[in-house]
Structure formats: structure tokens, C-alpha cells
């Protein structure tokens, strides 16, 4: 199929955006420079918890090149950073929502908390001056563990959050769950820690803020996944500016994984300060700052119990979770361990009764928020670890216990508030088992044993809820923002098309995938489609990219706009062809009078729209430029099975990933090459969580012990194998693309598949529990303890 017909949809089209990246012409925020720019450095707390007795900036202000220094005391009229999701607790009260100051007010609450912005002529001068600021701290005891923070006598972090509690929240029918447990033939139980992660997009956060005296407006370049949300939160909630006076540009962004969704203090302070100094201000985080201040991910401690009948049918699931919020509530922090977590606890199974209670606590650590998967990896880990354990307890095969409990009838309403529209869980389990050669596992295990190695196989049959989501339902659940997406299709006079999308691409390849959608639907060459994103000055109000929503929500908005373009094109064609509008068909880039060979090419219609000499001006406006806002009617439900095979050296504790297979159902696929790439990356982050990555704070001092790439183990090329990935398709039933989303699946399924494999391998030496990451040290120790 050629690139200029509908066949472009579903093809592995090479990416349009790649050329600029490959020649070094990408424009990331730190690559942008403006005349007269100054540089910012943020003074950060070296203590996890301390009262600020005084800040003396006099010496620093006199240092060479310093333009200005501002502390929290200077930020009059500036509010704190808002939290975008209100959780109402089981007590019926709103969550405790302490202030989140842009620059510290009176107290610092985690190492890296920002106290002052130093603005100087050069970055080095700003850094030098920051070192001259004299802060007198009264250091307080700190608490970093989310369970410890809730204990009596724990250091109190916010006066507005007694006992360091943000909320206790619950979902599900507790009475039904208790009743089911009372009649269960068997109950499997596990204690689970979902380890804390640091996102580590390779591009550190960066910003460049400018103020224009000519029209009292601001321009902010920022490494963000959602520039309109950034602008809305900053203007309406913090700075009190009209949105019309602030333009936010998120140019090329070097990865986000959730960490660049949020409104951060740094760019907010810079926008405010740019007017004070009347100079542009530039800042790029050093990696150490990224470790200390990017919103972290996960950090749950859970107890889970699964009740079964004598045949291994699930009767009820009971989950208690404590979630770490960090020192302050980041933008979407509160909905991650609740709305995006507990709702996923049905997994792929017909478990009729589920109850989950979640307590969120404050600690002296960086804020925690969505990181690739956001709540759904945590839910999958709980469900798939307990299902693995249940199979072990019931002496059933891992695939058998899953099949016996799979949902088969759709739509399916879970007991935790979601309705799955479609899926075929047997198909993805079968596919994964075949590709992973499960049949040959016993022979491979025997071969490993000959070499003194332990071999294990682990499954994860995950589900996720993506395409966030119906705004009204989200609103009822506490969202303080809409969750639609916007798309604009501007047909230019000569027939090329510029697409403006509210979605933001920071690696996902939207410039290609969305162009494929447009080229395919309009029957034009993909080279004639340009996708524009990431600039509030150019695109319609959009919600940006997170939660694997770009194609299913953002893509659908574009499709809806395309529908309007085609509908208008038919009116124009009917006029030009002197036919009834109802007789015009649009196919393969041509408007044709049905049953005749009379037609007009797409470019003829666009030209007529902009040069309306022969045009029904009495009935139709000129131009061909349509916008649509799309608010989905349901979440989408990507699902699949991941199977991991590991080999463990009991002498060293080293876990080697022998193979990793993913069989996923993402609905219809526009570009399989890009989809596979998303899975590869997600799986690697999942393997990273399971084997390597761990954010560790010192429990006494609250210092971040894993604050560099020497201490925080990122997956490197030789830590992972090549992956076997494939897809099955049940199209999403409620969006015209039939797309479900693919960005997070790898990170959702992989940790559970990995750790089930590790537990499977270690079972034969008597190890029953090992927490992530299954580092050589931990594995070796667990083996030694089991042998002792």
C-alpha cells in the first residue's frame, strides 16, 4: 500500500520527527535562548525537616553578576501550588491539603525544598551567589517512610495534617467482602511493598520565562507534558494572571513518564520573577536537582488477601494500602493511589466482591505523583502477585487459575466502579504462552539446574484504565479539571493540512501517528500533514499527554474535526459539482457524485474554500478549518499478558532476564512500529523497578541516598534482553479509532511478571518473600536466610 491512501493507517511508517533529532536540530527547552536572558539557581534545603529561623541574602546580593534574589517572604500575592484532585475520605471530610509554597515559608520539609531563587547574568554566577546565602535552620526530626509517618509520635510535618495524614479513603462493598471471606475454602495473603521510583527522563526539567512590558504578557518555555494545564494552574491558582497574558510553550521534550505533567515551583517562581527583573530567566535542572525535586513514583505498602472457593474461583479481594504523598501534594498526587489504583483491583477477573482502603501520608520526601502507569502498576502488582500466590497455595497452574477467573462477557461492570467495554483475555494469555514457549520451560529449567542455576517463570495478566476519561465522572470523583482533548484540522488553500492537537509528544511519535490518521482519513500524502503541539499560543485548549490517552482521546478529537472538514467539503463539492449534498461521497481523497465519474480532488475543494469565487457564500462560510473537543464516554481498557523467564545464580544472587514476552491488546493500531517501541520502553522501566531501581532516603536524616546515577540503578542496555512483543485486537467500542492506548502497559505488566518469575525460581530454595528491587544483595540474602 502506498503512503497516500488509507493504507497508511496500520503501517510502520518511519517517524517524521526523527530527522531533526538525528541531526541535532531538536529544540528542547534548554536549547532555546532569548536576548538578554539571565540565569536562575535555586537555593535548596540541605535538611529534610527544619524551621527557617532566618535567611540572609545580603552577601549573595552583592556577589558579581547577581540581578536579584527572592525568597518566600518576597512572594506577596503568590499562592501555593494547587492539587488538582480532591479526595473525600471515609469520614466524609475533604482530604487534608496543606499549603505547597512556591518558595519555602517558615519551614523546609524535604531535602531539596526550594528557599530562594537567585538570578544572575550567568549560570555560574547564580550558583556562586546561592552559596553565599546564609540560612539559619533549626533542624527537626524527619520521617521518610509512609507507614512510620502515621505512627504516634512521628514528627509532624504540617499543622494542617494532624498525624501526617492526608486522607483515608475506601472503595468497594466491605460487608460483601467480609461475608465472602467467612465462607472461603482458602485465603491467600501477602504483604507487598511497591518500591519508590525516580522517573529520570533523560532531559532534566528546564524553563525559560520572559516578560513583555509592551503588552504585560509572559512567555514560558518549559519541559512539560501539558502546557495548557500548566498555564491554567499557574495563572488561575497561583499567580492570579489572566490566561490570555501567559503563553506556555513546551517544545521538544526529552521524555516525561509523568514527571513533567505537574506545575512545579521553579517555573512558577521564574514567571513571577521575570516581571520583577524585567529580564528573561533561564534554568535547567542539574541531575541532582532532578533526583531531589522531580515528583517521584509508587511508594505503597499493602496487605492483600484473596478469598477462594475450593476450585480456586476468586470470591473476594481485600486490600489495605498506605501511600506516600511526600512532603507536599503534587498536582495529581492524590488520585493516583485511589482513583487510578483501587478501581483496577478487579484485574482481568470476575472477583465479585472487592474492598480497598487507602491511607495517604505526608513524609519528609519529595512529592510523589504519577509515574508511567500511575496507580495501575501498583494495582496490577497487588492483583498478579496474589494470584500467583493463590495458584501456588492451591497447587494450580498459573495459567489455569487465571483462565478459571477471567472475565468473558462484555461489557463487564466490576465491583470497583469501572465497566470494561471489551477484551479477550484468553487470546492474549494464549499468545504470550505460545511465544514464550511455556511448553519448553521444564526442559530449560532442567538445563539451568544442571549448571546450578535457578529458573523461574512469571505471569502478569494486567488491565489498565486509560484514555482519561469522562469529565463528568472524573469531576464526581474529585477531579478539579476536565479530561477532554482538543483537535484542530486546518486545511490550507492548496490542500496541505496543519493539525493542532492538545496532546503533547515527548517521545510518543504523535507527529507521525496523528499524521497517519489524517492522511489516511483524507486520502492525502502523509508528507502534506504537519502536526503542531505544545504551544498555548497556537493550539486549542487541550489537556496534554498522560495516562496513555493521546490516540484514544487526542486522536479522536482530530477524527471529529476531520469529520467536520469532510462534511463541509461535501457541501462545497455539491455546489461545484451541481449535485445534491446527499449524493456526494468522499473516498480516496476525492469528492464524487455517487454513481458517476464526476469528482473534485481534495485540493480543489480546499482551494475553493479559500478562493470562494464559485461558492455558496449565502449558505456557507469560506475557509476549511475545523476544531473539535472530544470528551470520552468511558475509559479504555488495554489488557494483556506478560510472561517473564528469569535465571538466578544462587551463588551471587544475580537475576538475569532470560526472556520477556508481551502479548497486548491495545485495540486498533495506527503504527505498529511505534506501539512496539512503547512496549519495549515500558517493559524496561518495569524491569528496572523489579530488579534495579529503588529510591532510598536515610530513615534518620531524611537524606536522599540514591541521588545520582551512581546510586540509583537505571536499566542499561546490558541489563535487559531483546523483547518478544505482539498484539491481539479487540477494538475499543466507544471511540471511532477503536484505540485503547499503549504507553504504559509495559511498566504496568512487567514488575509483576518479573517478580512472579523471581518467586517461582526461588521457591525451590524455600524463599517465600522478596521485595522489589530483587537486587543481587537481596536475593543472595534471602537464599542464605532460607537455607539457614
Amino acid at each position, binding site marked *: 500500500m502506498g503512503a497516500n491512501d488509507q493504507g497508511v493507517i496500520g503501517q510502520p511508517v518511519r517517524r517524521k520527527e526523527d*530527522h531533526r533529532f*538525528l541531526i*541535532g536540530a531538536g529544540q528542547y527547552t534548554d536549547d532555546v535562548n532569548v536576548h538578554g536572558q539571565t540565569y536562575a539557581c535555586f537555593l535548596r534545603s540541605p535538611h529534610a525537616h527544619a524551621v527557617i529561623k532566618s535567611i540572609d541574602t545580603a552577601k549573595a546580593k552583592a556577589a558579581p553578576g547577581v540581578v536579584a534574589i527572592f525568597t518566600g517572604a518576597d512572594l506577596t500575592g503568590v499562592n501555593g501550588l494547587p492539587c488538582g484532585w480532591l479526595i473525600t475520605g471515609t469520614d466524609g471530610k475533604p482530604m487534608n491539603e496543606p499549603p505547597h509554597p512556591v518558595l519555602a515559608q517558615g519551614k523546609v520539609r524535604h531535602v531539596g525544598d526550594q528557599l530562594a531563587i537567585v538570578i544572575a547574568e550567568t549560570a555560574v554566577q547564580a550558583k556562586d551567589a546561592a552559596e553565599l546565602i546564609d540560612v539559619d535552620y533549626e533542624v527537626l526530626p524527619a520521617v521518610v517512610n509512609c507507614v512510620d509517618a502515621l505512627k504516634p509520635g512521628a514528627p509532624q510535618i504540617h499543622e494542617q495534617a494532624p498525624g501526617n495524614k492526608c486522607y483515608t479513603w475506601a472503595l468497594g462493598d466491605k460487608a460483601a467482602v467480609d461475608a465472602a471471606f467467612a465462607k472461603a475454602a482458602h485465603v491467600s495473603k501477602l504483604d507487598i511493598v511497591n518500591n519508590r521510583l525516580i522517573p529520570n*527522563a533523560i532531559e532534566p526539567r528546564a524553563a525559560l520565562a520572559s516578560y513583555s512590558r509592551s503588552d504585560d504578557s509572559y512567555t514560558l518555555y518549559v519541559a512539560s507534558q501539558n502546557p495548557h494545564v500548566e498555564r491554567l494552574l499557574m495563572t488561575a491558582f497561583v499567580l492570579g494572571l489572566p490566561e490570555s497574558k501567559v503563553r506556555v510553550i513546551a517544545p521538544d521534550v526529552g521524555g516525561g513518564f509523568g514527571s513533567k505533567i505537574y506545575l512545579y515551583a521553579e517555573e512558577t517562581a521564574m514567571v513571577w520573577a521575570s516581571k520583577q527583573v524585567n529580564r528573561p530567566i533561564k534554568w535547567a535542572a542539574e*541531575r541532582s536537582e532532578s533526583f531531589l525535586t522531580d515528583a517521584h513514583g509508587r511508594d505503597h505498602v499493602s496487605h492483600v488477601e484473596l478469598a477462594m472457593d475450593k476450585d480456586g474461583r476468586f470470591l473476594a479481594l481485600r486490600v489495605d494500602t498506605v501511600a506516600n504523598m511526600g512532603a507536599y501534594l503534587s498536582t495529581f498526587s492524590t488520585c493516583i493511589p485511589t482513583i487510578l489504583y483501587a478501581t483496577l483491583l478487579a484485574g482481568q477477573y470476575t472477583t465479585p466482591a472487592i474492598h480497598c482502603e487507602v491511607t495517604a501520608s505526608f513524609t519528609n520526601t519529595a512529592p510523589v505523583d504519577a509515574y508511567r502507569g500511575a496507580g495501575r502498576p501498583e494495582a496490577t502488582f497487588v492483583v498478579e502477585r496474589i494470584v500467583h500466590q493463590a495458584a501456588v497455595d492451591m497447587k494450580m497452574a498459573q495459567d489455569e487459575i487465571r483462565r478459571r477467573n477471567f472475565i468473558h462477557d462484555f461489557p463487564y461492570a466490576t465491583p470497583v466502579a469501572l465497566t470494561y467495554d471489551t477484551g479477550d483475555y484468553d487470546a492474549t494469555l494464549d499468545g504470550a504462552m505460545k511465544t514464550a514457549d511455556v511448553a519448553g520451560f521444564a526442559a530449560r529449567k532442567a538445563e539451568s539446574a544442571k549448571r546450578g542455576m535457578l529458573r523461574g517463570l512469571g505471569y502478569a495478566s494486567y488491565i489498565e484504565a486509560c484514555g482519561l476519561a469522562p469529565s463528568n465522572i472524573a469531576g464526581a470523583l474529585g477531579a478539579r479539571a476536565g479530561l477532554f482533548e482538543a483537535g484542530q484540522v486546518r486545511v490550507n488553500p492548496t490542500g496541505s493540512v496543519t493539525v493542532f492537537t492538545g496532546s503533547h509528544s515527548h517521545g510518543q511519535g504523535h507527529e507521525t501517528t496523528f499524521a497517519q490518521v489524517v492522511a489516511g482519513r483524507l486520502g492525502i500524502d502523509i508528507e502534506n500533514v504537519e502536526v503542531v503541539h505544545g504551544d498555548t499560543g497556537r493550539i486549542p485548549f487541550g489537556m496534554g499527554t498522560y495516562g496513555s490517552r493521546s490516540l484514544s482521546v487526542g486522536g479522536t478529537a482530530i477524527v471529529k474535526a476531520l469529520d467536520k472538514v469532510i462534511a463541509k467539503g461535501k457541501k462545497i463539492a455539491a455546489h461545484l459539482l451541481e449535485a445534491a449534498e446527499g449524493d456526494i461521497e468522499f473516498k480516496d481523497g476525492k469528492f464524487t457524485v455517487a454513481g458517476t465519474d464526476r469528482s473534485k480532488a481534495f485540493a480543489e475543494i480546499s482551494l475553493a474554500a479559500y478562493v470562494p469565487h464559485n461558492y455558496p457564500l449565502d449558505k456557507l462560510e469560506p475557509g476549511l478549518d475545523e476544531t473539535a473537543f472530544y470528551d470520552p464516554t468511558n475509559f479504555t481498557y488495554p489488557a494483556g499478558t506478560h510472561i517473564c523467564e528469569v535465571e538466578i545464580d544462587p551463588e551471587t544472587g544475580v537475576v538475569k532476564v532470560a526472556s520477556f514476552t508481551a502479548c497486548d491488546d491495545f485495540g486498533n493500531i495506527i503504527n505498529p512500529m511505534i506501539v512496539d517501541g512503547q512496549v519495549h520502553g515500558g517493559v524496561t522501566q518495569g524491569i528496572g523497578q523489579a530488579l534495579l531501581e529503588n529510591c532510598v532516603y536515610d530513615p534518620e536524616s531524611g537524606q536522599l541516598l540514591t541521588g545520582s546515577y551512581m546510586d540509583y540503578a537505571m536499566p542499561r*542496555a546490558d541489563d535487559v534482553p531483546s523483547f518478544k512483543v505482539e498484539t491481539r485486537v479487540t477494538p475499543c467500542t466507544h471511540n471511532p479509532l477503536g484505540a485503547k492506548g499503549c504507553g504504559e502497559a509495559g511498566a504496568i505488566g512487567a514488575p509483576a511478571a518479573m517478580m512472579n518469575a523471581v518467586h517461582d525460581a526461588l521457591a525451590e530454595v524455600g524463599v517465600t518473600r522478596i521485595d522489589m528491587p530483587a537486587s543481587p544483595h537481596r536475593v543472595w540474602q534471602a537464599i542464605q536466610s532460607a537455607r539457614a
Partner: protein
Amino acid sequence: MSIPLSLTVNGKAVSATVDERTLLVELLRNHLNLTGTHIGCDTAQCGACTVQVDGRAVKACNVLAAQMDGAAVVTIEGLAAADGTLHPMQAAFKECHGLQCGFCTTGMVMSAIDLVARHPNADEQTIREELEGNLCRCTGYHNIVRAVATGAAAMAKQGG
């Protein structure tokens, strides 16, 4: 203290006067506006700043500009032919979808070229071990490894 420097960058003679603390990556990005070389970590761990110095891959965040007097530096901007034809390694990264956000990519390509120079027939394991010094958070390395192998084959063909 200011230090005068003369070197070649992408084949062109360059003179600059830099502060003694200036790193090579800062010279490239801030003085010469060659922003294709990226800063990902400042500790020589991520490899996003990899360039060639006198034919060898070097992490530009870990050498001082002052050390570069007389050196021949090649950055990502200097790889493609004058007519815009991509270097075979650049082309292979596109063909194999070896990049997503693009931030690590330029350093990854520079490392890959160095890798192939030292190991023209590298197998998958060698490629993986040799890429240890370059972090990618997007691709899971799967397609980068394919790209390096594909690029190596194309470089061999071009060389022969």
C-alpha cells in the same frame, strides 16, 4: 581567568575565550550554539553529551573546554554529509525506530559510531555491553541495539 582556545569543530576552525570552569559541553552549546549535544546528568553517567574528540567518543560534560586546545571535535551536527545525506548510523536509528524523545539519541549515535569503529562486527551482547555508558529511558534499548547492528552493516558496506 580567561583561557584562549583554538580547535576545530566539525571541520571548521574555532577560536574562543572561556572561563577556566567551562566544560566542553558548555563551549559547544553556549559559545558555538551546537545544541545537539545534550546535558543529561553532569556526572558522565548518561552519555547524552557524547561527542568525538580526535576520533574517540568523549563525554563532553566531563572534560574542560581548556583541554581542547588543538583538538578536532565532531558533534552530531557534523555527521551528515554536506548535501544533507545522513550518516549510516543516523539513518539506521530512523529506520529501526531507535529513538523516541530524541534527547539521548545524539549521544547514543556518537557512541555507536565509536563502538563500530572498535568492534566492526559486534554481536548483540557486545553492542549491549558497549552501550553501558549511554542511558535511554524511552526505548528499552531494543531498537537501539538493532539500529547499531544495522548501522554497523551499512558503515561496513560504505567503507568497502
